[in-house]
């Protein structure tokens, strides 16, 4: 007499995935021309309002001039390009240091809960402090250069990444830990292979937010006082009533921010394919 093992009667996975991808693509390709059209109509309307002085272009600029400023200063004279580099460098360093420190502190808190208990009131107070209020102090400590901008970006990113690291490591499934214990995993293995890995998805949403806040901190620092950077340009252009230039820098910042977020999401979906 034989015991037959039934074959699993479940769909082949590549076929199911292909079906899903196809559907998303068709939705995507249906939507983006409409989005582009909306943008163009909005631009034309803006151009019309400004050209006919329904609203004074001194306040809202003119799209054609904004675009021309954008291309000239970025690609022809290149004066904006060096500011972009200064801002990106500040953002990158603030993000790198802030997230490394945030992850390290988070892991310390998770491994030794007493340290979190001790630090909690101090960190809560620091985090509740409007960080921009620290800008004058940072300027005094780190000077007019990139240092004070990095400090401001760091002070924002650090707490965001810290709390997402702790939340991620706490989100680990209790049953996974029980199973690992019965399977004979050591404490180190449980920490490295389960707690850490479980924390990655939550950590990534913290990193994405942290990156945007690094940019925010650096720009805010540059607006307050700086020699270089997009924030400094923004403040200079606004101060001299070059409203087309202000809008061109805002456009650039929106593109930079989206680019950074997109890059982060791409990295995330590469790293967490199992999700």
């Amino acid at each position: 007499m034989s015991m037959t093992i039934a074959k699993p009667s479940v769909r082949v996975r590549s076929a199911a995935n292909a079906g899903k991808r196809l559907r998303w693509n068709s939705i995507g390709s249906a939507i983006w021309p409409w989005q582009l059209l909306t943008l163009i109509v909005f631009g034309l309307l803006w151009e019309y309002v400004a050209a006919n002085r329904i609203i004074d272009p001194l306040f809202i600029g003119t799209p054609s001039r904004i675009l021309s400023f954008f291309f000239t200063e970025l690609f022809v004279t290149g004066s904006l390009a060096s500011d972009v580099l200064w801002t990106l460098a500040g953002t990158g360093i603030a993000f790198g240091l802030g997230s490394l420190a945030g992850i390290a502190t988070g892991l310390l808190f998770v491994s030794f809960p007493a340290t979190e208990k001790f630090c909690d009131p101090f960190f809560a107070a620091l985090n509740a402090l409007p960080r921009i209020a620290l800008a004058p102090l940072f300027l005094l400590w780190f000077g007019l250069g990139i240092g004070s901008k990095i400090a401001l970006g760091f002070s924002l990113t650090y707490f965001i990444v810290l709390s997402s690291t702790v939340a991620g490591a706490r989100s680990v499934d209790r049953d996974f830990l029980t199973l690992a214990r019965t399977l004979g995993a050591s404490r180190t293995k449980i920490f490295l292979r389960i707690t850490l890995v479980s924390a990655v998805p939550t950590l990534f949403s913290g990193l994405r937010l942290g990156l945007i806040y690094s940019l925010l901190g650096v720009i805010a620092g540059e607006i307050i006082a700086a020699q270089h950077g997009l924030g400094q340009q923004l403040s200079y252009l606004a101060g001299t009533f070059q409203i087309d230039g202000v809008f061109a820098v805002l456009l650039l910042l929106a593109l930079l921010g989206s680019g950074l977020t997109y890059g982060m999401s791409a990295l995330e979906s590469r790293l967490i394919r199992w999700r």
Partner: protein
Amino acid sequence: MAASGLIAVEGLNHTFGGKVNALEDVSFTVAPGEFVSIVGPSGCGKTTALNIVAGLVPLEHGTVTIDGATPRAGRHDVAYMLARDCLFPWLTALENAELGNAFRDMPKEERRAKAIQLLDSVGLRDFKNAYSKELSHGMRQRVALARTFSMPSPCLLMDEPFGALDAQTKLQLESLLLELWSRERRSVIFITHDLNEAVLMSDRVIVMSARPGRIVADIPIPLERPRSVRSLQKDPRFHELYAQIWEKLEYGVFDTNMAEQ
């Protein structure tokens, strides 16, 4: 296998938080290679008893030994399986199947070969590289079976491993478990609330009463092996045993309820 897998539980008493009596004078042994089911109403402490043997719940009163040694979570001679598949979503089916041996530092080639062999046996040859989100409930529990059986532990502790499955998938996995078990007999403590399942699978069925959990009957199942899950359902002896156990179970529940009133 070096160890034989003799599990001995003697005079086990347990309370929840020092107040509620969970287990009262529970004693039984599982001989090497014996398949023993424990049935009882929910809350009767059968899972607690299992977790004490697994070393997950500290022992209060009584003695528990596995081949003469005291229980401790992570002992290599015990493999534990839960109702939930507990597959790690970031690992493939193959990586999940070899997880236990990976934690136990078995060399990579050896544990991989073992996992592939087990995945073949549970009918998942073509799903080695699938993540758990791509697998059905039944398939995930098959991977969990492969993970459990790929460890060379002489004792298997199973806490309602098929409790979350639909009736048909459950039948499939029951025959699968019987087949894996009959290849190299290990000692099994199998917790379930499904009498059908208990009679089909076991050499002995232990019936527990409602809280505080006591053993009200220890019934041998003399049906010959190998057993067919399907044909046994038509066997009159199967139904006799079923009725016998049901009576004991009913008595255990009823008796305790009367005592409380």
